[in-house]
């Protein structure tokens, strides 16, 4: 069982409007292929934790390692490159670039890596869209798609570089129950059949209950860390 993410003694403070200890000595490990949900009440620090793990927020104490790479202390440019290749994001809102087609939205992170030719990028993007059953909308402008479709394109975008971890900030928070089910099934399928590691912050107890592992937080500390399903292999 290989560890893909390791957080050691994470401490984080907010200074505005007054000093506030958001995360208190948070430590945990996540294994490859786990589908983890982070739950807790508003303000418990779960989103803050996710953004620390995402490497976008670098103002913290403690250490974060992803894929045996120590990320704490790296420069912004190094982190940007790392995010590009190792982390995929799915947010509550799709955050697709409205001027671009669905296909182009998925292609952009692949092109950014500089590893593939343009046609390779297009093939990869198209393959991911097809897997999510979105290939028929590939040439549509992303702003012309429905909410559920947009979220699926966003997932395809998160997947395009075959990231080590997919991070979700309430990935179903803005969807109706039918679309929530679709998105959950996609993520679940990714995790169980493709060995994709997923960390998702969620408010939805049903969503959380169906994941492999729940990290429950309260007042900046982990109060419950249950692993329900051990991932085989």
């Amino acid at each position, binding site marked *: 069982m290989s560890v893909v993410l390791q957080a050691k003694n994470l401490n984080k403070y907010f200074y505005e409007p007054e000093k506030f200890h958001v995360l208190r000595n948070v430590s945990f490990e996540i294994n490859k292929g786990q589908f983890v949900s982070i739950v807790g009440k508003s303000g418990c620090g779960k989103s803050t934790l996710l953004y620390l793990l995402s490497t976008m927020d670098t103002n913290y104490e403690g250490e974060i390692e992803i894929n045996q790479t120590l990320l704490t202390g790296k420069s912004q*440019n190094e982190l940007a490159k790392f995010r590009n290749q190792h982390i995929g994001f799915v947010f509550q809102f799709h955050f697709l670039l409205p001027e671009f087609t669905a296909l*182009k939205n998925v292609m952009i992170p692949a092109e950014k890596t500089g590893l593939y030719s343009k046609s390779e990028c297009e093939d990869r993007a198209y393959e991911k869209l097809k897997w999510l059953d979105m290939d028929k909308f590939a040439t549509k402008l992303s702003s012309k798609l429905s909410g559920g479709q947009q979220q699926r394109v966003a997932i395809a975008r998160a997947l395009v570089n075959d990231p080590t971890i997919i991070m979700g900030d309430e990935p179903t928070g803005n969807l109706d129950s039918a679309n929530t089910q679709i998105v959950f099934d996609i993520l679940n399928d990714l995790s169980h059949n493709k060995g994709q590691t997923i960390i998702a912050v969620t408010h939805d107890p049903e969503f959380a209950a169906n994941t492999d592992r729940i990290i429950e937080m309260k007042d900046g500390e982990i109060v419950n860390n249950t692993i329900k399903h051990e991932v085989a292999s």
Partner: protein
Amino acid sequence: MAGNVNFEIAKTHLLAKPRQTLIAMLGVTFGIGMYILMISFMQGFNEFLEDTLLSSTPDVRIYNDIKTDFSHSILDEVSDTSKTWNIVHHPKPKDITPNIKNSSRIITDLKNDARVQAVSPQLSTQVFYVNGPVQINGSLNGVDVLQEAQLTGLNEKMKTGRIENLLTIDNGILMGHGLAQKLNVSVGDIVTLASPKGTSMRFRVVGTFQFGIGSLDNIKCYVNLAKVQQLLGKDNQYVTEISIKLKNYDAATEMAAELAKRYDYKADDWKTTNASAMVSILIRNVMTFVVSFTLLVVAGFGIYNIMSMTIQNKLKDIAILKAQGFSSQDIRQIFLTESVTIGVLGALTGLVLGFILSSMVYNLPFPKNDFISITHFPVVFHTKHYLFGLAFGIITTFIAGLMPSVKAGKVDPVAILRG
């Protein structure tokens, strides 16, 4: 590869809002267009004026500068100033003749100088032109007309008659076109000239000339040198001024200083003679640059505004691009590319607009007036103006785009994505 993505995103942004892009571009277009128009027209006018002035003033003129010097009195010679004060009330200057002594030697000397192309001795005086009841004062120049023609191109400025008539007809006079009109005389008519000394002579008009400058055409006449000497009752060596045309007129300033020293007379180059005109040329140049600069700065603010707004509207896009691994430099590059593209396109269309407007002005008839005789507005088309306009347009938009782009690069994705 990665750079290509940035350019592609910039291109998509520009094309997604064509109207906004066009408006930002038009700001630069008008700025550069107006700059080209103004500089072409102003420069054209300056060059026209310089040409006209150059042809009507000699490169160097040597003359006797009469100073009324009251600091020194003849009384000081006889009464010792170390013991007493000499106070003279209402002093009068001593009577001096304003001519150049030993003029023939100076002229011969100048003619042997390799740098000199033509030398024209002159005797000028104030006169009254009288035709019946009409009396107009003006200046009379006694010249060797063939030499003078070499200096001023007088033969090309003739409106009626020929300069050679002056040599063949006794008591002939070449008259400024404006003056002839005021006196209501034309070729063949007789006009009476009265000198300040009280003498008068009758001349027959044998030609009229037009330099295109009212201040010359309305007061000036040419006659043979000997006739003015006769009118003033002077000998045939009496000249007040020697005009010189040089082979290279840029050397006039040093040459003037040298001649002044050599002959101990005042010598002015054409720049000094036309000092007021040179100042007005300078002022026009400064004005042109100030106005053009203002136009471009305004266009720059337009771009700054639009880029700031665009970035404000695209905060989410910037955040997600950063989350996906675009660095601050990438974001800066995207938005800087957009503003520089607007700048380059705007500047290029501005050059075209400027060229079209300048051509239109060039073809406009110039309103007729007494002071300047040209048929069309003077406009020049210099490549350097266009290159400068292009460079200035691009630099302005680069600077205008730089500040919002740097700001875009600094966007904190966490703050935006958390909502």
